[in-house]
C-alpha cells in the first residue's frame, strides 16, 4: 500500500446553464510513496492541475463532480467525499500544496510571520513564541537570507523567487507527508527556477516527503522526477520510470511531446546585407518622484545605453530575465516607448520623429506580443483584426482586394481563410498567435519585433510557431528582433544574441559563440540554469 493512492479518478464540470458536463479527468490512477518524486506532465488543458486539486478536494464543488469509483486514499483514509473536518485536518498538515503564481497565492495584507504562522496555529496550536522560532527555522530551511529581520515583511517587498520560497515554507511548516507542487517554477526566471528546484529536492530528501510535481516542462521532469505520468485530455497515456519513458516513449503522444522541442538553427542570412535597424545608446529612464513637490529623486534605468545593429534578414535574439528591459527595448525601437538616443530605420533617424510622421513607417515595422489572449481585441472578428492595418495604410483599393489580402495572410500563417468571420475566443492559443502574426504580416513589413511570441504557448505549439516564423523569414527576407527568456527557442531562431541584465548589455555576439563559450559570468549562470537546471552557488 502506497502513501497516496489515486484510483480511477474522474472529474467533470457542470456545463453553463444546463449544457452538457465537461469531462476534465477520465479515470486516472497513480500512486506515490515516501521519498519519491512523481511528475504529472502534460500540456495546458490536460487535466493535471485538476488532478492535483482533487487530491486536496479543492475543486469548486458542486460544479465539479467526481465520477463513480473515484478514490483517493491517503494512508487508508478516503479523501473523495470526506467530511470538511477530516479534510481540514489533512490539508496543510499531512498534504500540503505549492501553487504556481507566487504573486497571487500570498495574501498581500499579511506579513510573512502571519502567513506562515497561520498553518502552525491552525494545526499545531503553537504559542506565538514557539511559532516564531519555528518560522525562523523554516525560513532558514527554505534559504531565505536574513530571516529574523524579514518576519515583518509584506509579500510585495519580496521578489518572485523569495515569494515562492515563502509558499514552500508555508507548505512544509507542519512536516507534511505529501507535497503537491503545481507548476512551482513556471512564473519564475530560469536562474531562480534552478534554485527553487534544488530547494525542493533538498527538502524532499531531508524531510522524507513524497513530492507530486505538476509541470509542463520536460526538462524539469527529467531533472527531478523518479517516475512520470504523461497526461493528455484527461487521461494518463503513459507512466513509468523517468529514464525509461524518456529513452523509449511508447505512446505516440509522448513521442510527439519529446520531439516537440524547438530544434534547428536560424535561416541562413547574408552577413554583408545592409543594416536595416540601428540603435546607438538607447536609454529609457523612468523617473522616480518623491516628496510633496514630486521632485525627481532618481531613475529606474529600464534600458541604459543599448546599441545594436540588425542587418536585413537577420534575427537578433534578446535574452534576459524579467525586468532586464528587453521588452522596453523592443518597444523603444518601434517608438512605442519614449526613449533617448539614436534609432535609425532604413537609414532614417526616427528617434526624434513626431508620431504623426511615423505613421507611414509603421507599415514596415511590426510587433507580435507575448500573450495571444490579450493582444487580440475580443470584440473584433478575425477579418477586422487582420484588416485594420490595411485600412489604416490604405493598402487595399476595394473591399474584394482587402478580403483577398486577409485570406492570403491567414493562409500563409496556416489558418483557414474561412475562419475570418469568427472571434478570437473561438481559437486556441497557438491559433491566436498565428492570427497576431497574420496581423503583422499582412502589411508586408520589413522588420518585426517578436516579444516572447512563444512563452504563453504549449511546448508542441511553440515548435510549430518557431517553424512558421523561420519559414516566413526565409520567404520574405524579414528582419526579426526576437525577445525571449527561453534560450532553447532563441537558439533555434537567432543569428546573434544580446544578453541583457538590468537594462544593460552584458554580452553580445553570434549565437554559436554566446551559447557555447559564454564570457560574462552572468551569461554562464543563465546558460547553466537554462540547459542543465543547475543553480549557481550563492
Amino acid at each position, binding site marked *: 500500500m502506497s502513501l497516496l493512492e489515486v484510483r480511477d479518478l474522474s472529474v467533470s*464540470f*457542470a456545463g*453553463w*446553464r444546463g449544457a452538457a458536463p*465537461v469531462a*476534465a479527468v477520465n479515470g486516472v490512477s497513480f500512486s506515490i510513496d515516501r521519498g519519491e518524486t512523481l511528475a504529472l506532465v502534460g500540456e*495546458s*488543458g490536460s487535466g493535471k*492541475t*485538476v488532478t492535483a*486539486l482533487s487530491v486536496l478536494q*479543492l*475543486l*469548486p464543488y458542486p460544479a*465539479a463532480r467526481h465520477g463513480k469509483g473515484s478514490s483517493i486514499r491517503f494512508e487508508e483514509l478516503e479523501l473523495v467525499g470526506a467530511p470538511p473536518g477530516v479534510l*481540514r485536518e489533512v*490539508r*496543510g498538515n499531512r498534504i500540503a500544496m505549492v*501553487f*504556481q*503564481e507566487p504573486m*497571487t*497565492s500570498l495574501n498581500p495584507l499579511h506579513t510573512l510571520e502571519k502567513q506562515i504562522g497561520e498553518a502552525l496555529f491552525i494545526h499545531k496550536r503553537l504559542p506565538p513564541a514557539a511559532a516564531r522560532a519555528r518560522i525562523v527555522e523554516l525560513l532558514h530551511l527554505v534559504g531565505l537570507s536574513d530571516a529574523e529581520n524579514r518576519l515583518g515583511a509584506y509579500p510585495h517587498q519580496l521578489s518572485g523567487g523569495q515569494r515562492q520560497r515563502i509558499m514552500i515554507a508555508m507548505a512544509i511548516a507542519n512536516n507534511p507527508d505529501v507535497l503537491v507542487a*503545481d507548476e512551482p517554477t513556471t512564473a519564475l526566471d530560469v536562474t531562480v527556477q534552478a534554485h527553487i528546484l534544488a530547494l525542493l529536492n533538498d527538502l524532499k530528501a531531508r524531510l522524507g516527503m513524497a513530492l507530486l510535481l505538476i509541470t509542463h516542462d520536460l526538462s524539469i521532469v527529467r531533472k527531478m522526477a523518479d517516475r512520470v505520468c504523461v497526461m493528455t485530455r484527461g487521461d494518463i497515456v503513459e507512466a513509468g520510470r523517468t529514464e525509461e519513458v524518456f529513452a523509449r516513449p511508447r505512446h505516440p503522444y509522448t513521442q510527439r511531446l519529446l520531439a516537440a522541442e524547438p530544434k534547428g538553427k536560424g535561416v541562413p542570412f547574408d552577413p554583408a546585407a545592409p543594416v536595416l535597424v540601428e540603435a546607438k545608446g538607447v536609454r529609457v529612464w523612468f523617473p522616480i518622484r518623491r516628496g510633496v513637490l514630486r521632485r525627481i529623486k532618481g531613475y529606474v534605468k529600464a534600458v541604459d545605453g543599448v546599441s545594436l545593429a540588425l542587418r536585413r534578414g537577420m534575427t537578433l535574439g534578446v535574452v534576459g530575465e524579467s525586468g532586464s528591459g528587453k521588452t522596453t527595448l523592443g518597444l523603444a525601437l518601434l517608438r*512605442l516607448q519614449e526613449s533617448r538616443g539614436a534609432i535609425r530605420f532604413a537609414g532614417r533617424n526616427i528617434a526624434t520623429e513626431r508620431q504623426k510622421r511615423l*505613421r507611414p*513607417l*509603421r507599415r514596415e515595422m511590426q*510587433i507580435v*506580443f507575448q500573450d495571444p489572449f*490579450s*493582444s*487580440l*481585441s*475580443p*470584440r473584433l472578428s478575425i477579418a477586422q483584426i487582420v484588416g*485594420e*492595418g490595411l485600412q*489604416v495604410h490604405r493598402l487595399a483599393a476595394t473591399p474584394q482586394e482587402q478580403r483577398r489580402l486577409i485570406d492570403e495572410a491567414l*493562409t500563409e500563417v*496556416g*489558418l*483557414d481563410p*474561412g*475562419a475570418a468571420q469568427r*472571434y478570437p*475566443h*473561438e*481559437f*486556441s*492559443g*497557438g*491559433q491566436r498567435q*498565428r492570427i*497576431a502574426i497574420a*496581423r503583422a504580416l499582412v502589411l508586408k513589413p520589413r522588420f518585426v519585433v517578436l516579444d516572447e511570441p512563444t512563452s504563453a504557448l*504549449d511546448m*508542441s*505549439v511553440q515548435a*510549430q510557431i518557431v517553424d512558421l516564423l523561420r519559414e516566413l523569414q526565409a520567404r520574405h527576407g524579414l528582419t526579426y528582433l526576437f525577445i525571449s527568456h527561453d534560450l532553447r527557442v532563441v537558439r533555434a531562431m537567432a543569428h546573434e544574441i544580446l544578453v541583457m541584465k538590468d537594462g544593460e548589455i552584458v554580452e553580445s555576439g553570434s549565437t554559436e559563440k554566446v551559447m557555447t563559450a559564454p564570457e560574462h559570468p552572468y551569461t554562464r549562470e543563465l546558460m547553466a540554469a537554462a540547459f542543465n537546471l543547475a543553480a549557481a552557488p550563492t
Partner: protein
Amino acid sequence: MDDLPVTQAPSPEPPATADPTAGVVVPAGAGQRPGAMGGDFFLGRRITPLTRRRLDAFRANRRGFWSLWIFLVLFGISLFAEFIANDRPILIHYDGGWYSPLFKDYSEADLGGDLPIPADYHDPEVAARINAEGWMLWPPIPFSYSTRSTAPGPYPAPPSTTNWLGTDDSGRDVLARLIYGFRISVLFGLALTIASSAIGVAAGAVQGYFGGIVDLGFQRFIEIWSGLPVLYLLIILSSFVQPNFWWLLGLMLLFSWMGLVDVVRAEFLRARNFDYVRAARALGVSNRMIIWRHVLPNATVATITFMPFILNGSITTLTSLDFLGFGLPPGSPSLGELLAQGKANLQAPWLGLTAFFVLALMLSLLVFVGEAVRDAFDPRKITP
C-alpha cells in the same frame, strides 16, 4: 482554504490551448463551441456568445424582464397620447367627406357652420350637426391635457364617468394630463440620459486615454464645476428666461454629464495599456480610431449598466423642478405639477395619489430594469 483562489480555478470549458490541430489548416467549424455554429443573431446583428449569455441572464431575471416590457408598453402607449386623449375626434365622416381633425385644423365653416373659427367638437351644436350628417370617432378619453371641462362645479372635481381620475384645479382631466405628463417625463429623461452619457463618455474617454496633464486639468475642472449650486443657478436663470423643454434640457445637461466620467475614465486608464491597444498603435492606427474601435467597447458595459439609473435620476430631476415651479412653462402636462396641485389641494386626494402611484410605478420599473441589467453584466455572475 475552502475557497479556491480564482487563478487556480480550472476552466470548465474545453481547453483552448492544447489544441493539437493548431499546426494544421483548421477546417471551418473546428474549434467552435456547439451553439455558436453559423453565428448567433439578436435583432438582426451577429452577437458573441458572451452577449448571448448576458441576454439570457437578463431574461432569466423575471422581475427585470417583465418590468422592461411593462415600461416599454406604457411608454409606447404614451407616445400615441394624441390618439388616446384628445379633445378632437380621430376621424369624422360628414356630408360624404372624410375629415381627420388630429392632423388638420378645420374651421366651423368647413363643417357646415357659419363662422370661420376653429371648430370646437365638444360644442353641442357642432356635434349635433356632424352627427346628423355622419359620425365622429372619438379617442377613448375625449380630453386633451389642456381641455377645460365645461361642466359647472367646484374644481378639482372628483373621479366620475366623464373624468375617470377627476379633474385638477382648473377643470382639466387628470388622466389626460397624466398620459401626456408621463410621455414628456420619459422623453425628457431619455434625451437627458443619452446626451449626458454621450458627453460623459467622450470626456471620460479623453481623460483616461491621454492621461497625464489632460487628465489632471480635466479632473480639477470637474471638481470645481460639480461644486456649483445647480438649483440656485436654475432659479436665477428661470427669472431671466421662461424655461421650456429645450432650455431645461440644456441647463440640466450642463451639470449631469459628470456622472459617467469617472467610470469611463477608469476603464480607459486600464484599457490603454492592453496589448491589443499597443498592437493597434504599432499598426499606425490613429488615436481617435483606437479609442473608438478598441477601447470604447470596454466602457460600454459600465455605461449600459448605469443608464437605467441615470434615466431614473433625470426623470426625478424634472419632476422636482416642476414641483417647485421652476420647470416646464405653466399649463404643460407634468407629473411634478400634478404633485404640487395635490399638495395644494389636500381635500382632493385623487390628485396627489394619482401622481404618487404613477411616479412610484415608473421609477420602480426602471430600478428593476436597472438591477437586471447590472446583474446581467456582472462578470462574477457571468463567467466568460
